[in-house]
């Protein structure tokens, strides 16, 4: 039996807000002992104090979490800076948590380390699902996922979201029990008897003509059609805005106009978020774009985004084979928050139509999402976790 309770708290005092959110989450567990907790918080709070507040209420739970670009609960996206906590309990399910540090030095290794750390805590060395929360401002997100899969197996069900910092793109934080990390990836392993369904969709539409990647290294895109990569944005945005591209982080302007990459075997383009641009006009993306890829500029529509969010939720629930959802975790791209503006609640509401309004729900606006392609977790041979952008990932847990 899985049980979950979610608390959300706002205010100024970091310790108090952390404690309040944890307290509310715990109260909604109806007297059960919290085995694990997910903590998502704004960088506006002193991270140490906030986490200490959470720990003052949940001293013995496995706590993992990260800073975000906006917290989400069953009441919708939080309007201002907040702390959201989901407390998890379950007799037939065990939780293990760990960290992999120094993504900047070796992203793949950090991924392998976090998964290895978590796996070895499981008494029989067996895990059934893995939730990861990486920092992708310092390294290639796709490499971190690859590292995790190196350790857990290529077809292991992995979901997660990259930490955020309220749309500043400067520094994100990861939490593990009492400690605050940055430039790291934390993970929560689940083992035991439970069901999991995952929905993954983006719904962005390509505009304009395709361009070919003529030079790239990993997640750094140097040239498109032989010209500096940033030219694609200068052309589309116009001279006025192009000047701003040099002053502001590229992501701030371009996040709602990501790049779509054609991948073999799929009609839908795989999305890559532009994060920063350097003096040579090279764009660093949230994950790699191989040379020779054909890419296009993408644009969002609220109607389409709501439609696919609901479809993703429906498909996640279908994977439960009739069991009722007990807890919902959403990893939703920050770009979708920007796309929806004040209407962010509509997307969450559409998801709740499928998962149930009363089901405890937590999530956050991310800088990148991790999930199996197409959300496939039932047929593990076809479960291929990847690094996504601009996507909504819905993870539903049930008995």
């Amino acid at each position, binding site marked *: 039996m899985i049980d979950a309770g979610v608390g959300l708290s706002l*205010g100024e005092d970091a310790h108090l807000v952390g404690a309040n959110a944890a307290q509310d989450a715990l109260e909604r567990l109806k007297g059960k002992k919290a085995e694990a907790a997910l903590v998502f918080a704004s960088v506006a709070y002193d991270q140490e104090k906030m986490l200490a507040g959470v720990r003052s209420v949940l001293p013995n739970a496995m706590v993992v979490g990260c800073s975000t670009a906006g917290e989400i609960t069953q*009441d919708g996206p*939080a309007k201002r800076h907040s702390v959201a906590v989901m407390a998890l309990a379950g007799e037939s399910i065990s939780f293990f948590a760990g960290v992999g540090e120094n993504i900047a030095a070796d992203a793949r290794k950090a991924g392998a380390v976090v998964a290895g750390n978590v796996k070895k805590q499981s008494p029989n060395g067996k895990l059934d699902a893995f939730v990861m929360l990486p920092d992708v401002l310092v390294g290639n997100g796709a490499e971190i996922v690859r590292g995790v899969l190196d350790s857990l197996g290529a077809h292991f069900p992995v979901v997660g979201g990259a930490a955020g910092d309220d749309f500043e793109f400067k520094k994100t934080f990861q939490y593990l029990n009492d400690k605050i990390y940055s430039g790291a990836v934390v993970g929560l392993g689940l083992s035991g008897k439970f069901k999991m369904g995952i929905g993954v969709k983006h719904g962005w539409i390509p505009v304009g*003509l395709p361009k070919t990647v003529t030079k790239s290294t990993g997640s750094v895109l140097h040239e498109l059609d032989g010209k500096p990569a940033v030219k694609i944005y200068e052309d589309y945005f116009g001279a006025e805005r192009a000047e701003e591209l040099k002053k502001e982080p590229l992501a701030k302007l371009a996040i709602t106009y990501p790049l779509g990459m054609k991948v073999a075997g799929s009609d839908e383009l795989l999305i890559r978020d532009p994060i920063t641009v350097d003096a040579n006009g090279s764009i660093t993306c949230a994950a790699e774009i191989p040379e020779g890829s054909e890419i296009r500029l993408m644009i969002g529509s609220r109607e389409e985004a709501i439609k696919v969010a609901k479809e993703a939720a429906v498909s996640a629930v279908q994977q439960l084979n009739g069991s009722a959802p007990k807890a919902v975790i959403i990893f939703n791209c920050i770009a979708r928050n920007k796309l929806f*503006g004040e209407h962010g609640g509509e997307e969450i509401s559409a998801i709740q139509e499928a998962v149930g309004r*009363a089901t405890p729900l937590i999530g956050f606006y991310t800088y990148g999402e991790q999930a199996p392609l197409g959300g496939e977790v039932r047929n593990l041979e076809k479960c291929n976790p990847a690094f996504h952008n601009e996507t909504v990932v819905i993870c539903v847990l049930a008995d």
Partner: protein
Amino acid sequence: MVTERKDIRHSTVAIILFLSIPFLLFAAVVGTITLRHFNEMATIMGMTFPLSVFTSDAEIVIGAFIVCLGLESGLFIWALSLYRTKASTLENTAYEQERAAVLLVRRDMELSRANEQLRNLDEVKSGFISVVAHQLRTPLSGIKWTLNLLQNGDLGTLSLEQKKFLVKAYESNDRMIGLVNDLLGADRIDSGKARYTFIPMDLTGAIESVLYEIAPQVHARELTVRFTKPEGQFSPVRGDPERIRAVLQNLVENSVKYSRPQGTVLITLSSPDTETALVSIKDNGIGIPKDEQEHIFSRFFRAKNAVKVETDGSGLGLYIAKAIIQRHGGKIWFDGKEDEGVSFFFTLPLAK
């Protein structure tokens, strides 16, 4: 895009068909020669063959080849020019499409930016209201306290005339405190600062207590108020008692305020299913004009006919009520026509 793709497909098929015509002709000629050979074979073998055509192979083959080659070249040149026209049309379309895409992106950016600015402005406005409301509350409480002292005669005996005006001042001040409290309530909702405590609560008791408090106004307007509830103990709902009370008070007060003298207000409590409580508050008052119905739960909105009846009002009551009910996981809606009264309904989850 799709029709263009179809176009390309169609013209490709047409070109292939045209280009294959000479080959078909050539094949026909070769075919007839083969037939003649069969004929000769048949004669040699002493069998009869009905066809007797063409006599010189080489001449015919070469002749046919030259004719077909000429035809093929002609067709090829024609197909090439067709292809060129198509290609240039496509190129133009692609160019136009790219231009449209640039326009679309730039317009989208402009709109997003304008939207963002509006949001910021709205936040500034909310902040302003919040500050003003907070700042007003203290002096208003001060006035209330002072008026109280005066009224009670603590500062000396008052004439009847003075007392009458003090009562008016006191009432006006109280209304102002009410408005400021509405502003603060809405601010707490907007900022998400409102903290709720959900406990099993008795809805019947809450309704009865609101009705008791409003009795003087009901009496003054000679209204009939009826409260219908199911027999026996009504299951408790899961709610924040103080806030649910505020919702009830707001809805009942509205129906009393906007009822005509000697009108009727009907309140019913029921349970449409095992998980929900449903409250309805029905009056036969002035109702809500049709063209204003969609705004009724918006911030600072007051219907035209309501303003005529009752000049005071923050236009926040229903906005707050809706936020509270939604926060409880319930729904709130209404039904009715202008001049024929209105029924408000809301649901709350029953406590398990």
